[in-house]
């Protein structure tokens, strides 16, 4: 059985504008996927596609005016959406861990990093300070921080971006979570440091037999560090499947456009670029949300597209999935 099962997740932003009219943004529109132990899922898409919001919706980190209105999130046999906030809180940082984009702002600036690690460990485990301390030092060594015992006394501002990200990873993994969610874990880090952090993350996931979700806009990260990928557009997964097959034969026009738009595939001067403004979440069109930007759009796209199975585990939400010309060689 899957460790994490998400079905038809729906999240809305409900607010009032200056004219006192209620406005509803359909931010997440029926996201569903499942994830097993030892698996790394890459969640890709552009800004506003709902990648981070999906994670926040799952683990109860939404703040008003965002609200989950429907769906099912089952983690290890438990329903997260109906769980009371206290129980969910006990789960986060323990069985589910989160690594976010800005390592330096995610650390408490007034506490030494060793004490922060000890605090996180003791919040979820009944251990003595000395035991927690030992565990913290082990974790810092495991994430490749040199001289961990001495670094325990460091303040967050003394760390470089890469070091801070290592500390955050140590903090996320100190309680041996079953699920790790990494939200843009290397955005803002230099390429040479990015490689170090991604290698570390992958090793830790394999070693601890966790499941992991890596949220990123970088297809290179997905291609080399994930087992499966899910492409999001306008709050829905438009294509998902094993990384190898999706890259080899993207079936949704959006996935095709995304992969062809990478600098490595881009042929400047070909005029084949399918860009366009982001979808207006307040007024999504009927049927396929990608319709407005899709070069293959037809009349049938006015009705909701089905999830079509393309090959082993590869699914695309498009009327024409499997019947489109190959996007590139």
């Amino acid at each position, binding site marked *: 059985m899957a460790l994490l099962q998400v079905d038809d997740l729906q999240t809305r932003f409900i607010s*009032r*504008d*200056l*004219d*006192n*009219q209620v406005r509803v943004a359909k931010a997440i529109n029926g996201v569903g996927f499942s994830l097993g132990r030892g698996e790394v899922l890459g969640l890709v898409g552009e800004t506003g596609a709902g990648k981070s919001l999906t994670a926040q919706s799952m683990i109860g980190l939404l703040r008003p005016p965002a609200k989950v209105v429907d769906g099912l999130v089952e983690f290890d046999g438990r329903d997260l959406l109906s769980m009371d906030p206290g129980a969910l809180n006990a789960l986060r940082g323990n069985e589910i861990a989160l690594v976010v984009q800005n390592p330096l702002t995610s650390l408490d600036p007034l506490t030494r990093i060793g004490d922060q690690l000890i605090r996180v460990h003791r919040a979820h485990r009944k251990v003595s300070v000395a035991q927690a301390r030992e565990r913290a030092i082990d974790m810092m060594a495991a994430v490749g921080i040199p001289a961990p015992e001495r670094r325990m006394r460091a303040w967050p501002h003394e760390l470089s971006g890469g070091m801070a990200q290592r500390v955050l990873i140590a903090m996320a993994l100190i309680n041996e979570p079953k699920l790790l969610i990494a939200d843009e874990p290397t955005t803002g880090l230099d390429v040479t440091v990015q490689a170090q952090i991604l290698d570390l993350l992958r090793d830790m996931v394999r070693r601890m037999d966790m499941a992991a979700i890596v949220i990123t806009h970088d297809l290179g990260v997905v291609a080399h560090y994930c087992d499966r990928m899910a492409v999001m557009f306008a709050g829905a997964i438009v294509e998902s499947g094993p990384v190898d097959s999706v890259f080899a034969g993207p079936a949704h026009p959006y996935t095709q456009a995304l992969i062809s738009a990478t600098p490595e595939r881009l042929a400047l001067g070909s005029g084949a670029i399918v860009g366009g403004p982001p979808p207006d979440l307040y*007024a999504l069109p009927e049927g396929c949300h990608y319709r407005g930007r899709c070069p293959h759009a037809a009349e049938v796209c006015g009705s909701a597209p089905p999830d079509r199975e393309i090959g082993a585990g590869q699914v695309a939400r498009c009327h024409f999935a499997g019947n489109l010309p190959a996007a590139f060689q």
Partner: protein
Amino acid sequence: MTEASLRPTRDAAGMPRALARIVGIARRSPTAAIGMAILTGFAGLAVFAPLVMPYDPIAAFPREILTAPNSEFWLGTDGNGMDVFSRVIYGARYAFGIAIPAVILSIVIGVPLGLWTGYVGGYVDEVTMRVFDALRVFPSIILALAVVAATGQSLVNVVLVIGVLDSPIFARVVRSEVLALRSSTFVESAIAAGNPTRRILFVHLLPNAIQGAMAQTAVRAAWAVRISATLAFLGVGIQAPTPEWGAMIRQGAEFMVTGQWWVALFPGIALILMVLGLNMLGDGLQDLLNPRRKA
């Protein structure tokens, strides 16, 4: 692009859009709405004073000196036999007539000064700020007293003194905004396009730095009303029998001890209400306009 035109002009409850917007603002800041209501009331009184006043505010009724409130003189009469109700209403004209030009003067002096010192920085900035600090050491009322006493007691002088004394407030607010904006990319972009400094200040920085200062206007107007009334109360600037609230309170204070409370009380209430209204509007404006509150 057609979104705006497709918007219904009435919402579900059938409210016209303008009303809906007012309701929307009132929901987000009830303080501003109450303050605005009070001020609208006073503004109405000031504009339509001749229609509302039962008597000429400086017409003396020699036989009605210090009459207690009754059906003829609703709020009584003062020591000169003038109708307190009419004088309180007419006083609104003085309150606005001093506060509005004084605040405009503060803005005209303070805003360019804040733009300049904030953008140029260095020693121009240092000297200006130290001068402001020095000014702040004196209680402004004492400075105002001294200056008005020295320059001659006229309404114009009161306005000038209040306007000049309060201009550092606007200069500081604008300066701090400019300090934050100075290193922003759009300013660098303006420099890169070849803008002269003057244009950077007034075309690029001013519209982006003015919001904080605008949010201050109501609060500063409250201060101007208060300080002008205080000056008049102390007998500087505006003199009785001018129907100005501070001057009226000064006259009425003498009668307080002998039991004729109405002479001072009613202009006092008007003064408090107006200052309260301006402060509430000011607080509300700061909430509504503060860019850091927008999430």
